[in-house]
């Protein structure tokens, strides 16, 4: 029996792949999408993992803020290994009449412990370049610095309190990703220069990091050093950074991106699955007569099943294999094409895990979609020999195949979720895609009913178009889910992208301050305010100007218990996983909207109270009356939650997670920060005047940050758009398959219509409109679901303003309808190509 089924399968396979091109292509595309995203993200992940030590700049590192390590801490470190000190801070750069903020890093002579920076155009050793020589300290500056200040190597630039001579160009930092200064001007100078100028005294705003190369860097030794450090110095606010911390953020981002793209890959399999189902039933319907004949000859259903299962399985495996092979090549192709534009390190290799995953998912998807048609065909009664098999007489799907289909559906979801770096996210996204798919199938059913209902009310060819949509062999159940899913995804991505770009380009520039000032000295507010008044800023208008104390602190306890970072909801983890900005304010800011509790009286001077941003409070599990402990500049302070407050993160103002009550903290006399809206001319004037009077105030021009954000957004959008394009491509493939499966039927229909006296153009219009109606339904539903999914993403995930993306949606729909109509016309033209005589004669 076994060998007989194999023989039948082989004989049929030898007949060629003609009816199977779409079947193969759909599986290939889905497998490719999954294998490619998996392989690309794995190569980035491995690349990052391999670089994490370099990116940390040592085997282990320690950081403190607003101070340098104490002599005790320093001694403790030095007894354990080689140490290099690094300080990062924001300063104003000033050269040739240009003043703008520069990311400054000050390093000691031991830097870098690992690797070497890439320098060009001048002195090629960092320590030599930075040294004090010929009466000046040296600086290594990024290309962006040279560009934006219009400088050359050899020129002078003032960075913060010190004049430097530019001795070399810094192209790449030893511990950085991509080009140095990609997000704005950056410079590296000698620690000695800043110490000499008194810029690194306690309490000023900077972060100091100490990278260590211990004598033995085994994992156990590093663990021991970390544990010792925690025990000895965590009270002081010293934080241990391990190698994986250096790449944590990026790897999280990659994991999210990977989850999202993998689900898109599965969606491609599902959209293509419609094509698989259709190709399977088209193929098997040509075999109905032979299946019936086998049965009449005495073959049992088991033989038929194994013969065709072998054949369909072999073809599915072939399609999946081709896709997997292309997917495995994807990282190589990507880096060949765009390697120098991707700042992430990568290790190019064949990673089996994503390939196996893609292969398995594709085979399961093939089973899921082929099984019902397969079951029906194998259940064909031998009586089929005596009549033609119409939709009405199709046998139901046998129980075995129905059960297997359910198993395949569960397996698909289970494997996709289990292999995802974020199973819950994957499950949710798959749930969404599955729901959309069911809606589309339901919609197809409705379209058919509606078309059947409308058709008698129409005339002539239009009646035929609707009757075709409503009858057996209708396009609706193929086009609606296959194309609808891709269009929904495209609409979703395009709508989110549209809204975010609008936020960055239009909403944000209109609402957020154009200038952000930091490090306004605690004794110079009046001078500062005066400067702004002189430049025409109305400092009494809270929509134009606001100023508040600027402090840095960390959350160390919640409700009296030490903080456990892992217990905090992931979306709010940023509030606790490092130092964050804090401020204290007497009067409630006018834009702050309290959701719970009350604001303190303006002259409040009691025990410390805090107003917590609403979502952060929920993430930390805090309510009004709960205690929260902070470490602020070395001091541990406990505050009681007085109110919860909603913050418009995209708006104007003090958008910090915590606002503390005044009084108690006044004594520290911290520097202030301020935000202001100003036109371009007063921006320039303010920056210039500050340079003369308060040169230490750092001014950020938000316009430049928004430009960088828009660029980053554009880059991520490319990846996501490419992935959703694959789903649409799968939908189009299915469409092409649908056309192909239809040409036979369409040919006799067109020939018949010609005998009635219909002209060619009328027949073309008939098919174009039939396909366009099906395409329009898919576009409409896809659009509605895409927008429906985009809205909460824009509002809740990105907390941006929603703007209905009319143009995007209308153009996607128009293109989809147009493409469907063209497809219909092409099908019609194919059907018309043959003379009616041939078609009507050949049965």
């Amino acid at each position, binding site marked *: 029996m076994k060998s007989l089924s194999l023989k039948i399968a082989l004989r049929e396979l030898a007949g060629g792949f003609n009816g199977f091109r779409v079947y193969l292509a759909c599986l290939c595309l889905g497998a490719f999408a999954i294998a490619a995203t998996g392989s690309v993200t794995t190569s980035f992940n491995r690349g990052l993992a391999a670089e994490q030590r370099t990116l940390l700049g040592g085997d282990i590192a320690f950081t403190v803020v607003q101070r340098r390590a104490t002599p005790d801490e320093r001694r403790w470190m030095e007894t354990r290994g080689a140490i290099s000190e690094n300080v990062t801070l924001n300063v104003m750069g000033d050269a040739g009449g240009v003043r703008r903020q520069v990311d400054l890093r000050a390093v000691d002579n031991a830097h870098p412990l690992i690797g070497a920076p890439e320098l060009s155009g001048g002195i090629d050793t960092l320590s030599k370049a930075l040294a004090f020589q010929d009466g000046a300290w040296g600086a290594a500056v990024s290309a962006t610095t040279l560009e934006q200040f219009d400088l050359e190597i050899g020129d002078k630039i003032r960075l913060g309190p010190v004049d430097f001579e530019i001795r070399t160009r810094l192209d790449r930092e030893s511990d950085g990703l991509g080009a140095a200064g990609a997000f704005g001007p950056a410079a590296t100078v000698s620690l000695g220069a800043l110490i000499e100028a008194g810029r690194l005294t306690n309490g000023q705003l900077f972060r100091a990091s100490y990278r260590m190369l211990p004598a033995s860097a085994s994992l156990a030794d590093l663990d021991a050093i970390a544990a010792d450090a925690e025990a000895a110095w965590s009270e002081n606010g010293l934080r241990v950074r391990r190698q994986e911390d250096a790449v944590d953020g990026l790897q999280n981002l990659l994991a999210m991106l990977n989850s999202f793209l993998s689900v898109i890959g599965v969606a491609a399999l599902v959209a293509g699955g419609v094509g698989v189902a259709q190709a399977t039933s088209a193929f098997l319907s040509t075999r109905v007569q032979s299946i019936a004949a086998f049965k009449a000859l005495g073959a049992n259903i088991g033989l038929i099943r194994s013969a065709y299962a072998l054949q369909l399985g072999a073809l599915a495996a072939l399609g999946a294999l081709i896709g997997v092979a292309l997917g495995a090549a994807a990282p190589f192709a990507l880096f060949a094409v765009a390697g120098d534009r991707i700042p992430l390190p990568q290790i190019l290799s064949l990673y089996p895990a994503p390939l196996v995953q893609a292969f398995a998912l594709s085979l399961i998807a093939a089973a899921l979609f082929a099984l019902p048609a397969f079951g029906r065909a194998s259940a064909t009664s031998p009586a089929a020999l005596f009549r033609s098999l119409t939709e*009405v007489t199709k046998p139901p799907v046998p129980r075995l195949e129905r059960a297997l289909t359910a198993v395949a559906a569960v397996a698909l979801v289970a494997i996709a979720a289990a292999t995802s770096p974020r199973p819950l996210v994957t499950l949710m996204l798959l749930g969404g895609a599955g729901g959309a798919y069911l809606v589309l199938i339901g919609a197809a059913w409705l379209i058919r009913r509606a078309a059947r209902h409308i058709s008698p009310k129409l005339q002539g060819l239009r009646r*035929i178009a609707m009757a075709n949509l409503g*009858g057996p062999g*209708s396009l609706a159940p193929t086009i609606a889910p296959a194309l609808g899913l891709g269009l929904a995804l495209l609409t979703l991505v395009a709508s989110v992208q549209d809204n975010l770009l609008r936020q960055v380009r239009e909403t944000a520039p209109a609402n957020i301050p154009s200038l952000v000032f930091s490090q306004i000295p605690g004794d110079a507010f009046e001078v500062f305010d005066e400067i702004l008044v002189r430049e025409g800023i109305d400092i009494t208008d809270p929509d134009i100007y606001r100023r508040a104390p600027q402090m840095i602190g960390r959350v160390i306890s919640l409700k009296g218990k030490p903080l456990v970072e892992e217990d905090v909801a992931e979306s709010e983890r940023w509030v606790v996983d490092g130092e964050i900005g804090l401020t204290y304010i007497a009067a409630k800011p006018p834009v702050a909207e309290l959701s719970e509790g009350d604001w303190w009286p303006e002259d409040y001077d009691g025990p410390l109270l805090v107003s917590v941003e609403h979502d952060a409070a929920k993430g930390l599990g805090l309510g009004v009356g709960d205690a929260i402990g902070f470490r602020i500049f070395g001091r541990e302070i406990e505050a009681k939650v007085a109110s919860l407050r909603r913050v418009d993160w995209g708006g104007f103002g003090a958008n910090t997670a915590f606002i503390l009550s005044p009084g108690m903290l006044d004594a520290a006399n911290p520097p202030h920060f301020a935000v202001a809206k100003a036109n371009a001319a007063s921006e320039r004037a303010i920056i210039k005047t500050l340079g003369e009077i308060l040169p230490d105030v750092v001014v950020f021009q938000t316009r430049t940050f928004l430009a960088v954000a828009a660029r980053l957004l554009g880059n991520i959008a490319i990846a996501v758009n490419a992935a959703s394009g694959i789903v649409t491509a799968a939908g189009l493939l299915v469409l092409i398959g649908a056309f192909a499966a239809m040409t036979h039927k369409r040919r006799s229909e067109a020939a018949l219509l010609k005998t009635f*006296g219909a002209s060619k153009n009328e027949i073309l219009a008939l098919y174009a409109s039939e396909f366009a109606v099906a395409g329009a339904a898919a576009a409409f539903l896809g659009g509605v679901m895409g927008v429906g999914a985009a809205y909460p993403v824009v509002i809740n995930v990105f907390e941006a303003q929603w703007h209905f993306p009319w143009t995007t949606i209308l153009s996607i729909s128009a293109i989809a309808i147009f493409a469907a109509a063209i497809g219909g016309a092409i099908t019609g033209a194919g059907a018309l190509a043959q003379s009616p005589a041939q078609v009507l004669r050949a049965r």
Partner: protein
Amino acid sequence: MQALSLEDIFLTLPSASGPVEILKGVDFAADAGETVAIVGPSGSGKSSLISVAAGLERATSGAATLLGTSLTGRSEDDLARLRRGRVSLVFQSFHLLPTMTAFDNVRAALEIAQIADADARARSALDAVGLSARLNHYPGQLSGGEQQRVAVARALAPGPDIIFADEPTGDLDSVSSAGVADLLFGNIEKTGATLVLVTHDLEIAKRADRTLEMRDGHLS
């Protein structure tokens, strides 16, 4: 007046094994109102002859005139327009549109031919073939004989000047065959249309005004 005339018609079609000469100099004419039966072995070219005569296929050479219009050199759309409401075909395998009811099948053909009063005509045509109880049935729900009667109703409904029927009873049992033949001849008698009927059934052929035989591309 002649409803149809074919003069020295040749038809050569390409095939995998080189060009095949199918019609080899056919001369044929049918007067208005005449019924002509064509018999002959399978593969002799009967269907091809009908295709050429009805303007579905272009003759390789020779002159064909249908209802007073020369078919030579006309575009496919011209030919389609010429057929509208005046030329009907009935096929061995019915060729009903499976997505529409019997009523809609007849109605749609009338509408495409731009004939007024399609509904009433379709209803009475189906009534005339005895299917008034089957108006809303789909082809899949009808027997072969019933399907062919729908096809006959569809052919008769426009009141054509000429009907080509290619083995209309070839797929039917003898009872259904007789019924379909009755319908064709009975209605033709009433309307005075011309009928060109290909059949293997000599009983049916006998009912025609004359019978011709097709043999290897020649008509005699």
